[in-house]
């Protein structure tokens, strides 16, 4: 017999109401399940109920002018095969393609990744560089929270009891790139992941570093520090400062010092790759 039951509400209201009634700590929320199922298999968690989001209309996306709203249960593979998302948010596609294999991304979702808030997430650095925010729904209605304020600790996102991640908002298309370092492309997680994005709105770069505990960090250099089209020297200096912000975390994958060296190189390459997309742009 199954140690948990599977509940699949047909509407957002039903899902929120169910979660509000559920005893605290006994329910796990199921989006794609690619991470959750491994926790269940290894008995790291033992919930009595799984609240499945599969029947909610959160598995699609919509454009509002330049802004893209992605439903939290959209399979990552749907996003990577969409030509418009690919051309408007190239860095997001790069980060998505860094998540496991194609067959894993058929199940994995953006909302699930944020809900887990893993320090090794490839998606979170890119969402930070794109200034993404998450729309949350819960007992007291809907609210919007910057991804930066959501992914505060691994496995423990800043959600109140009974809250669910409904969608992710990307405010504007940005020249962007995501680069990572790891042993095998589809069977390992990144030692370091670097996202770079240039905002046409304020003419400034965002750089985010991930793959290193405790959480991904975002750096927002000033326009004089890192201009839109930086000189080699300016980029080199900005990359060095960014890498120094990385916590010196050593684990079985890599040493802290090695991660900083890799991060330094990846920041330079990510800004150059994103910058090359801006050729012809003002």
């Amino acid at each position, binding site marked *: 017999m199954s140690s948990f039951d*599977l509940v*699949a*509400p047909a509407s957002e209201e039903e899902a929120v109401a169910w979660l509000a009634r559920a005893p605290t700590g006994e329910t796990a929320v199921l989006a794609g399940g690619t991470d959750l199922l491994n926790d269940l298999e290894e008995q790291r968690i033992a919930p009595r109920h799984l609240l499945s989001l*599969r029947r909610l209309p959160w598995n699609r996306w919509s454009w509002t002018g330049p802004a893209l709203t992605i439903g939290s249960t959209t*399979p990552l*593979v749907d996003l990577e095969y969409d030509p418009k998302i690919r051309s408007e948010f190239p860095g997001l596609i790069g980060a998505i393609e860094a998540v496991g*294999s*194609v*067959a894993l991304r058929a199940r994995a979702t953006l909302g699930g990744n944020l809900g887990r808030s893993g320090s090794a997430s490839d998606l979170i650095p890119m969402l930070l560089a794109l200034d993404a925010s998450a729309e949350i729904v819960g007992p007291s209605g809907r609210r919007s929270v910057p991804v930066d304020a959501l992914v505060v600790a691994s496995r423990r996102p800043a959600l109140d009891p009974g809250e669910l991640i409904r969608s992710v908002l990307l405010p504007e298309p940005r020249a962007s790139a995501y680069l990572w370092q790891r042993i095998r492309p589809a069977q390992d997680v990144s030692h370091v992941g670097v996202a770079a994005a240039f905002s046409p709105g304020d003419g400034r770069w965002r750089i985010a570093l991930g793959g290193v505990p405790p959480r991904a960090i975002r750096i927002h250099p000033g326009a004089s520090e890192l201009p839109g089209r930086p000189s080699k020297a300016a980029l080199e200096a900005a990359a060095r400062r960014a890498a120094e912000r990385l916590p010196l975390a050593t684990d079985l994958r890599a040493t802290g010092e090695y991660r900083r060296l890799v991060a330094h190189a990846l920041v330079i390459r990510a800004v150059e790759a994103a910058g090359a997309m801006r050729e012809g742009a003002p």
Partner: protein
Amino acid sequence: MSAVPAALKVNHRPVDLEGVPADERLLDTLRWRLELRGTKEGCRSGGCGACTVLVDGRPTLSCLTLTRELDGREVTTIEGAPDHPAGRAVLEAFESEGAVQCGYCTPGFVMALTGFLGRTPRGHRSTERLLRELQGNLCRCTGYAAIARAVDRAGREAP
């Protein structure tokens, strides 16, 4: 919560979900409930690709999928590959290139490639692209050279 009896289709055949436990994975439903043993269990944690099947035409890891989550969906396994236009071409390519050693990873490779070719027209099937789609499939015999030849051939010959 559903008025219609929960069901999914496996190789066009309806499967009643009522008696399936909540924690049962598609991999186990296929192998032990439906006795479709072609789908293989490798790492059971999403890292090897041996358990890959198609869900609504998309390559999907059956080890990381709860069966009851697939209410209303269509699953194609290696047993259904001969009836799939791209699947048949992939099987023939693996056979003619001798791309099978112990064979354990083969169903996963075949289904991952079938899913991609089934939705990707010729002209978008560069070797690099095809191999990228298969990064999640491991062959522990390391028989990759023959597999790569079969992948190229399937890319040329599949409709």
